[in-house]
């Protein structure tokens, strides 16, 4: 029982730092760079993606024995796109300003690598409960990463936090931080910092294996990709 609890807790927490989807797995880079010019937009994007991640992880895990292997990717995409559209409709109705802020990136959650990645790597191999915990953990990790980046960019680039002006900073803004180069710079520095904290121990991609790989029948590398995943130096994350 205790082991089970520990296991659940580790699933929930690993998305926050050890397997942070943004800084460790380097997934979802596009919305990360695009929506972190302001804290409000970043928070909205993080929560929207989290909601979709929890729902899709839960349903995909629930249907993991029903969905045939050959059509699992189209099924995941339909489910994820459906949940994104539903979240989009709710945000459009109740948070129209956030809807305007997020723009096209809201709809693009559908093709966010984190969500499809968690469906493929975790949800379709685990129970709904664990899938939901994974969704919460990864979603919060994504949200925290966005918030961290957005805070740095908005404070330095715009002299404000969540739209509220910071007196001293307001007069000493560095415009680059709210532009694309500033986003890349902050992103790179934060990745370096997180790797320093985690001592460069990138997660072992043990979830990858030939079983379930749609290219397995034609693959000429054997299990090279899976073994590459065992070696952090060669990991393609």
């Amino acid at each position, binding site marked *: 029982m205790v082991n089970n609890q520990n296991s659940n807790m580790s699933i929930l927490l690993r998305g926050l730092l050890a397997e942070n989807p943004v800084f460790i797995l380097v997934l979802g880079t596009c919305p990360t760079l695009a929506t972190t010019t302001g804290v409000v937009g970043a928070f909205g994007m993080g929560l929207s993606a989290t909601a979709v991640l929890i729902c899709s992880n839960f349903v995909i895990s629930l*249907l993991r024995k*029903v*969905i*045939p292997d*050959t*059509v699992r990717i*189209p*099924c995941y995409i*339909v*489910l994820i*796109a*459906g949940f994104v*559209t*539903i979240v989009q*409709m*709710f945000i*459009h*109705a*109740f948070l*129209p300003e956030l809807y305007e802020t997020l723009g096209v990136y809201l709809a693009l959650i559908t093709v966010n690598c984190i969500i499809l990645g968690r469906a493929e790597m975790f949800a379709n191999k685990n129970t709904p409960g664990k899938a939901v915990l994974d969704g919460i953990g990864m979603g919060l990790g994504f949200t925290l990463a966005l918030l961290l980046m957005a805070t740095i960019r908005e404070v330095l680039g715009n002299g404000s936090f969540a739209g509220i002006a910071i007196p001293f900073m307001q007069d000493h803004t560095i415009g680059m931080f709210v532009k694309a180069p500033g986003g890349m710079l902050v992103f790179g520095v934060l990745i370096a910092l997180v790797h320093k904290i985690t001592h460069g121990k990138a997660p072992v991609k043990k979830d990858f294996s030939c079983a379930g790989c749609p290219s397995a029948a034609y693959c000429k590398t054997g299990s090279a990709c899976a073994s590459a995943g065992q070696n952090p130096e060669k990991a393609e994350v």
Partner: protein
Amino acid sequence: MTIEKDQIKSVGVLFAICAVIAVLMALVNSFTAPIIKENEAAAANKALLEVLPGGGTFEEVDLSAYTLPATVTAAYRESNGGYVIQLTTTGFSSGLVIMCGVDASGTVTGALSLASSETLGEEKTYGGTLVGLTGATIDGADTVSGATKTTGAFKAAVKDALNAAIILGGGSVDIRSAEEILMDSLNEALPEAEGAFTSLFLTVASDTVDALYQADNGAGYVAVCGETYVALDGNGKAAAGADAALAADAEAAAAAMAIPSEALDLNKYEGISTSITEAYVTVDGVYDITIKAAGYGINGDEYTASGEYIYVRLAITAEGEILRCVTVSQGETDGIGSACAEPAFYTQFNGRTVADYEGIDAISGATYTTSGYLAAVGKALAAVDIMKGVE
């Protein structure tokens, strides 16, 4: 068989997931769509309130039921009787979109530029200067010097909005341009002309006839006598029932214009201005001279001047009185020197002689144009002296 079963299962599962997701989305949409629509209406209302502050609720008007100025693209009726009119016009470049608020008393409450590609950006602030104006005072509003095309078009559009508000409110207003009014009046006076007229350059002195138009199909003439349009048939006779005095003047003018003028050989006259391009003399001894004037187009800045002369046509009596003066063509700066093509400028010369022709009101900000024009008129008057001496 197994493969078939697997395929059917795959298709079935994918279809079922699509169906369930579609139903879920439809359910959520049925719940959120009305709220989204309400939000959008509120946002649109907010934009309308910017030009009609203190307005109530707005309702879009179906424009197909009204004849409105061509610039009007949308209109919203406000619950207290005001209107917000959206207009698209052409300033310095096309696509100048303006939103104008007009309250129930017909006063401009706000005018904003929603979209534009003007060079100077004057349209962004000019609307504020028109607030408080009405249909009676809008013509007197100043345009911005240096951005006359933009601000002139803006002002004209706001005037259109005021007229549109009157029409939408059930009133009537003449929205035709001066050219349209003239053409409609000519057609009404002489329907047989089928809408095709040529303006004749009047070389006869007449106190009543301001202009004479000839039907292109030979159906007759229309003489413009102030506000009255007198139709003449193909033989130059007025129809029965026309004002007798006006009809007589119109007939006389048409008869005089029907006699061909004699073309003059300009090489014959020593000392005559070489700027004169054509000259004729009528049987009544009125000289019809066309002369080119060097305005800004010739003497202006080498990079901005058009290189075009102003062509001026004058009818001058042997006594040296200018009967008519018209600008035939010009290439002066748009919105500045181009005012020399406006009747308000060139009709000032009518009735003047060498003694007082320089006393006309100059075109503001167009020194080159005015001085070039005056020089040309002076040369034409001098030419008449030379020509009549030789004759």
